[in-house]
């Protein structure tokens, strides 16, 4: 049987330089893939859509977040269950099995050969996205010893799939395409011999004395224990899900998940799509779907106004994409995957208006209704958190210098509250400068640079009307050093 081929060979913006061919096993089949692909991307490229089944009802589970944040693709890789195959690279000869519900941990192959390694460093950076990369580079530039761990096998975070030219200030890569920024920064990281990088490494806990445990996956698994004088955590965010009938069906995917497939791996996520949510993510991805040859039947927004920036909406509107405000999805229809989506009009109280259903024959329903900070690491570390809707949910309280209530633990990027890449770079830089001050490196120059950056971030960049809501959210969780001292001893509410 000839398997279908969803790989993209010609693209207006991207050149997919695929690596060496590798073969691996899925169930009993031999799958041909390319080095540098994730297992999931390789399977998706040849037509697989169901990767797991729900434990009780046996309902199909498809690709969802594609960045290791959800549990939709948990599989068994070489006997190891609960492996997120969306962030696990293909390797020659590995055996991959679908998990079919909950893993039987007792029967899982025991990893007796996992070596524990202890390292010490001035600064540990958790997360190699825009905030983490910038933080590592700024600290290394000043001579600090840095360890950088990244859960994905490729550095760059979500920059790797951003094909549009960035907005914002030229000082922070404005005008450059996101994936190029990732390439530039990753290359720069390699130039510093005072930065040690562990990819495929998941920081699982922050322990007494500033020791962070990192599970490094792959051929040679490691239990890495990093004793760090300072820690900057920038684990990013995850896409929010949406409640509607049939939302479990494969084909219902985070919009960013589809973006990972088409822009990072060059795999066309489907033929026809509806996009739910008109924030910048939804608008930009609708445009990129068109570039990848996917038809966008409609983009729905439950509010009366488009959520993202007008210029992004104009780009898809003038190519004929319908933007349906006061609309959302009520139902996805299909058995093993999405075959149809039903959208409906909503009134000002967010009640569906009967008789306004519109049916679309699509194989993709892409959800882009917002992001949620990934703050598990901070919660586990015991940082004082606050629920701030404008920031996307629960986020750690921090000082102007990005330090949390756990001394010497800093936060930067989307995990500190949802914004975008420019602010992530700036927050990463501020956090690194704060860490340097703690380490006693740099002194006055560092302090001045930090002051200027904080001023630009809060008093100019975030003053733009379109981002002011995010600014207000962040104001609610940003405190002075004195207030933070009170929070630490429990005297401040």
């Amino acid at each position: 049987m000839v398997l279908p081929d969803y790989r993209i060979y010609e693209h207006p913006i991207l050149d997919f330089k695929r690596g060496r061919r590798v073969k691996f096993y899925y169930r009993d089949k031999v799958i041909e893939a390319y080095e540098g692909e994730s297992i999931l991307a390789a399977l998706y490229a040849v037509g697989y859509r169901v990767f797991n089944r729900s434990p009780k009802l046996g309902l199909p589970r498809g690709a969802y977040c594609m960045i290791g944040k959800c549990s939709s693709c948990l599989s068994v890789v070489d006997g190891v269950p609960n492996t997120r195959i969306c962030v696990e690279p293909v390797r020659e000869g590995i055996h991959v099995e679908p998990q079919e519900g909950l893993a039987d941990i007792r029967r899982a192959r025991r990893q007796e050969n996992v070596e524990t390694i202890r390292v010490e460093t001035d600064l540990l950076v958790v997360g190699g996205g825009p905030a983490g990369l910038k933080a590592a580079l700024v600290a290394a530039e000043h001579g600090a010893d840095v360890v950088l761990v990244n859960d994905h096998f490729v550095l760059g975070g979500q920059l790797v799939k951003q094909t549009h030219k960035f907005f914002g200030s030229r000082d922070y890569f404005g005008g450059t395409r996101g994936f190029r920024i990732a390439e530039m920064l990753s290359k720069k990281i390699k130039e510093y011999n005072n930065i040690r990088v562990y990819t495929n490494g998941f920081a699982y806990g922050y322990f007494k004395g500033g020791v962070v445990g990192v599970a490094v996956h792959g051929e040679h698994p490691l239990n890495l224990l990093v004793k760090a004088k300072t820690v900057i955590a920038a684990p990013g965010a995850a896409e929010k899900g949406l409640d509607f009938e049939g939302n479990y069906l494969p084909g219902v995917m985070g919009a960013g998940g589809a973006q990972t497939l088409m822009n990072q791996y060059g795999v066309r996520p489907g033929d026809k799509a509806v996009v739910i949510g008109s924030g910048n993510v939804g608008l930009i991805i609708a445009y990129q779907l068109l570039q990848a040859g996917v038809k966008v039947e409609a983009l729905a927004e439950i509010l009366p106004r488009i959520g993202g920036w007008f210029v992004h909406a104009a780009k898809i509107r003038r190519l004929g994409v319908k933007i349906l405000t006061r609309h959302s999805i009520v139902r996805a229809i299909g058995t093993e995957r999405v075959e149809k989506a039903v959208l409906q009009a909503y009134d000002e109280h967010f009640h569906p208006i009967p008789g306004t259903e519109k049916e679309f024959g699509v194989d993709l329903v892409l959800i882009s209704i917002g992001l949620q900070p990934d703050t598990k690491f901070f919660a586990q570390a015991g940082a004082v958190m606050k629920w701030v809707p404008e920031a996307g949910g629960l986020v750690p309280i921090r000082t102007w210098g990005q330090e949390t209530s756990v001394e010497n633990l800093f936060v930067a990027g989307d995990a500190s509250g949802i914004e975008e890449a420019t602010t992530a770079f700036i927050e990463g830089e501020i956090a690194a400068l704060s860490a340097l001050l703690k380490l006693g490196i740099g002194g006055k120059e560092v302090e001045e640079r930090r002051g200027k950056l904080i001023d630009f971030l809060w008093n100019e960049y975030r003053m733009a009307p379109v981002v002011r809501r995010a600014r207000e959210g962040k104001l609610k969780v940003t405190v002075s050093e004195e207030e933070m001292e009170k929070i630490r001893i429990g005297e401040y509410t």
Partner: protein
Amino acid sequence: MSYKEKGYITPEELEKLGLLPPRERLEKGPVVIAECPEEIPCNICVHVCPFKAIRMDKIYEIPRIDWDKCIGCGVCVPQCPGQALFVVDLSKPGQALITLPYEFLPRPEKGMWVTLLNRRGEPVGEGVIVKAWQHDRTWAVTVSVPKDKWLEVRAIWIPEK
């Protein structure tokens, strides 16, 4: 309904925001129109303009074009991350020339006939490409369009062969 509800801006809204050049200037030769009505934090155009014809005091202000300094060179067209800049030339008889950004396949080539689209993505006629050049994989395509469509045409679609 404003542009934020519809996803496209009307000539009336552009006029009201002072984003359209005066008619006499348009007839003199090529000039850029910034269809960038929202205060977003971005100032790429200010930096890339070789003639310093675009002004912005704070990073989030709406770009203001100095119609006398702008020569309509189009350098900014493929560099605007919002793809919101268009060069219009009404100085030739019969046809108007519009330079617009394009990031799709097939590749545009001089002499190609293309479908002209308005801001709502509706086909409003056919035009011919008179010039096409690239900056970092974004094309700046100059198309010849019927003169009365200069304020309407804002995209092209090249049918696959």
